């Protein structure tokens, strides 16, 4: 079936099977491998992306169900060469070890700060409680998100508006 998705503000059109999960659409069809693919059972949360600004496990969402909605992946956090403060926070506070959970953690952090610019450590821990860090580096992840919050990272509304550009226009710009 024809699936047209807005991902990081760019419209992509692909002909895929209805059974294709969003995580595989992003990774295999669009080459956006920043979204990681982990447990496949909506437990680990490494596949989290934002759909209309809300964290969602993309291994348990069909690409077809996402048509008409805006997807933000980790590739869309950085803007014009500037890291999102959340990304900067993970750098400054050593918020990652192996890095496998990091994209999902950063996107959930982005959504949290958009809704609540000054979250307590308890609120941060609650927000990321659907995501596992197999290095058990939770303390530094919480510190990284606080780092971003303390620098006014909240309420930025990450990512460009939907459908600003088409994939063809994007390639033109890039060439």
């Amino acid at each position, binding site marked *: *079936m024809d699936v047209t998705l807005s991902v990081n503000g760019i419209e992509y059109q692909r002909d895929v*099977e*209805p*059974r*294709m*999960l969003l995580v*595989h659409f992003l990774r295999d069809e669009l080459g956006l491998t920043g979204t990681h693919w982990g447990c*496949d*059972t*909506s437990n680990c*949360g490494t596949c*989290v992306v934002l759909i209309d600004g*809300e*964290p*969602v*496990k993309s291994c*348990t*969402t*069909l690409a*077809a*169900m996402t*048509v008409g909605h805006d997807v933000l992946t980790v590739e869309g956090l950085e803007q014009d060469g500037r890291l999102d403060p959340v990304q900067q926070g993970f750098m400054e506070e050593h918020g990652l070890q192996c890095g496998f959970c990091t994209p999902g953690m950063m996107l*959930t952090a982005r959504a949290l700060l958009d809704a609540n610019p000054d979250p307590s450590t308890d609120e941060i821990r*609650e*927000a990321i*409680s*659907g*995501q596992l860090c197999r290095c058990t580096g939770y303390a530094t992840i919480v510190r990284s998100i606080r780092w971003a919050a303390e620098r006014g990272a909240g309420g930025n509304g990450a990512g460009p508006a939907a459908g600003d550009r088409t994939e063809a226009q994007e390639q033109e710009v890039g060439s």
Partner: protein
Amino acid sequence: MQVPAPFEYARATSLEHALELLAGHGEDARIIAGGHSLLPMMKLRLVRPELVIDINDCADLDHIVEDGDTLRIGALTRHAALLASDTIARLVPMITDAERVIADPVVRNRGTIGGSLCQADPGEDLSTVCDAMSSTVVIRGRDGERTVPMGDFHRGPYETAVEPDEILTEIRIPLRPGAGSAYEKVERRVGDWAIAAAGVAVWMRNGTIDDVGIGLTAVGLDDGLATAAQDAVRGREPDEDLYAEAGKLAAEQCDPVDDQRGSATYKRHLTAELTTRALRRAVERARAARTA
């Protein structure tokens, strides 16, 4: 890689459209909302629909409305919306209690109350809540709608009164004066299914428990209600002895099995303690609401 078997996908633009799409497919069509129960089952080939009908655009199924003496909750209402709702917290705090311990915040962004009830997992928390609150559900087919009390909605594990060509559209919770409610759950780790849980609603009048609903999760009761405990509590003045007696009767009536979540003995112990705690907290809340 876990991927469902092939199927056709259709997106319904309205409830009527969804019912049209369902017609004639029998058991081979399934409704998808949050998808956090159905897609895992499809990945494991426990269900293998030929047609998946997406109802996420049916906005008229997504609502929380205080309507006179009834609280109406649309089947498409997300867990996150239930947890965030002040109306729910004020009228049926047991739902807020339960939502805090259903899965995790990311899953709650997608999962719906209708999906939870229709999945009908024996360990499902909101079924217990709806049982204890004497709720009814609204089921719609092409020929019209019917309302079904929770006792008739349950047909056993993973089975409900919703026929293949029908859709659960709304949950209706009666609102009565003097109400208080609470949900208590023990799980192995955050976000897991209950080892055991108890949901209790009381309706107080002149210092006595005028009526009560005691629902139990994951401990093998067919209709989910601890009827012996309910009978013992009804019409009595609440005190610690009564809470303990209710817990003891609930533990005697339940019928848990040994499994990977715990032994039957442990689950019986939990049932007594959680029933006692939930009843105590429900009464406290009813009193607090009265003096508020």
